[in-house]
C-alpha cells in the first residue's frame, strides 16, 4: 500500500501556496491562495487512503497547472490594479 505521508501533504500544501502567490494577476493570485487554503481545510477530515491519494494527485495536477499559468501570466503582464497601489 503506497499511502501518502503527512509530510508529503504538508509539502505539497506549502508548494501550492508558494506558487499561488506568484500569480502576476491580483485576482487570480488572491483566488488561488484562498482556494488552496480552503480546499486543504475542507478535506482535513479525510481518512480513506484512496481518497487521500486522489486528492493528492489532484493537488499535484494543479501545482503543474499553476506553474504553467504563472509563466503565461508573466508574458502578458498588465499595470497593477488600483487596489494594489493603495496597499
Amino acid at each position, binding site marked *: 500500500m503506497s499511502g501518502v505521508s503527512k509530510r508529503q501533504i504538508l509539502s505539497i500544501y506549502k508548494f501550492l501556496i508558494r506558487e499561488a502567490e506568484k500569480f502576476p494577476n491580483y*485576482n*487570480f493570485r*488572491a483566488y488561488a491562495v484562498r482556494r488552496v487554503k480552503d480546499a486543504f481545510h475542507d478535506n482535513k477530515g479525510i481518512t480513506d487512503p484512496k481518497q487521500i491519494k486522489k486528492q493528492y494527485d489532484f493537488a499535484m495536477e494543479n501545482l503543474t497547472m499553476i506553474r504553467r499559468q504563472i509563466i*503565461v501570466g508573466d508574458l502578458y503582464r498588465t499595470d497593477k490594479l488600483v*487596489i494594489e*497601489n*493603495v496597499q
Partner: protein
Amino acid sequence: MFRLSKNIVPSLSKALLKRSNQDQSNSILVLLQGPRLLSDKAKPGKFAVQHEDFGRPLYFDAQATTPVDPRVLDAMLPYLVSYHGNPHSRTHAYGWESEAAVEKAREQVAELIGADPKEIIFTSGATESNNISVKGVARFYAPRKKHIVTTQIEHKCVLDSCRALEGEGFKITYLPVQENGIIDMKDLEKALTPETSLVSIMTVNNEIGVKQPIAEIGAMCKSKKVYFHTDAAQALGKIPINVNEMNIDLMSISGHKIYGPKGIGALYIRRRPRVRVEPIQSGGGQERGMRSGTVPTPLVVGLGAACDIAKREMAYDHAWMEKLSQRFLDKIYSKLSHVIRNGDPKQTYPGCINLSFAYVEGESLLMALKDIALSSGSACTSASLEPSYVLRAIGTDEDLAHSSIRFGLGRFTTLEEVDYTAEKTIKHVERLREMSPLWEMVQEGVDIKTIQWSQH
C-alpha cells in the same frame, strides 16, 4: 516628428519648473506627477472629483463578461499550440485527436446540466443559441402553431428574434413581470393557447439578477405540450440546473459568462421527445445539421473545462458570492439611505446587485467611480443614455432608473475589492447628493413628487 517633440519638451519642462518654483519642497513629485496635479489644481473645491488612486480599475462587471480562468486557459492552450486538426476530418490522426477533445467537452457540458452529450450543440454564443431556439422552433412548427410567449425582460437577442418573427406573421406575447422582476404564473397560464409553439423565459436576468421559477414554468409547459426554451447564459454554473428535473426543452449556454473563452456557446436541445428546429445557417451539416460550420476545437475545449470547473466549484463559488454581496450591501445600507435594490432580494443570484441611488445621476456616479469597472445595465445597451427597458418593465420610476448601477461580483472578486468599492460608492454618492438641490429639499422634508415644475 523629432523636431516637434524637441519643441514640446522645453516648453513643458518650463511650465513645470514654474510650478516647482511655487512650492519647492516637492519639486520631484511635481515633475513625476505634473499632469495629475495640474488637473486637480485647475478645479479646486469640495465638489471636484479627485482621483487620488491610480492603476487599472477593479472589475465589477461580471454579468458583461468574466475573465478566462487560468485552469480553462491551461486546457485550451494545447489545442492552440499543438493540436490544430479539424475535428470533422475523419481520415487522419489530426482530426481524430481534435474530435476526441470536442466530444470530451460535449460530455462536460452535458454533465453540468444533466443532459445527454448528444443533446449539446456548439454555437458561437448564447445569442446564436437564442436565435436558433426562437426562430428555429417557431419556423419549424409554423404550419400548425404561430404563437410565441416571452417576457418583457428577456435579453435583447430574444426580443429582437421575436420582433423578426412578428414581421413573418407570428403572434408574440410579451409577458409583463411583477415589481420584483418575477413573472406571474397566472399570466403565463393565460397566455398559453393551443396555437403556442414556444415559451422563452430567461433563467437569471442579466441586469437585475432575478431568478425565474424555471421548474414551475417547465412543468406548466410540459402539461400544455408547449416547448420551453430558457436563456441560461447568466445562470449556468452559478445555480444548479437540471434540464430533466426542470423540464427544459432548449437551453442557451454562453462560454464567456462562466470564466470560459468568448466566441463559444452551446445549445441544449432535447431528443426525447424530439424538438425540431429549422437551422439558420446552411453549410456542411455539422452539429447534427443544426449549426453548420467547423467546430472551434480550442474554444470548445475551453467551454468544456469551464463547465467542468463550474460543476466542481458551484457550491464554493456560490457561498463566496453570498458572503461578498452580503458584506457589500451591509456596508452600503449602513451608510446610505434612499438606496433601492432592483429586483427581488431573495429570488436572485447574489453576484448581481442592481442598486438605484435616489437623487444621484447614474452616469455621473459611473464617471466618479472610474477606479471601478461598472455598468448601469447590460453591456449591449451601455452606449445609450436611455434607462434600461428591464427597469422600466419592473416599474422603476424614470428618475430611479437613471440612477441605477449594476455591481457584478465573480469568482475572482476579493473582499478587499468589495470594501474598496463600497467605500468609494458611499463617498461619491454622498458628494453628489451634497450638490444636488433635490437632495437638499428631501432633507428639508419636501416631497419631490408634489413639486410642479414650471414649463419654459
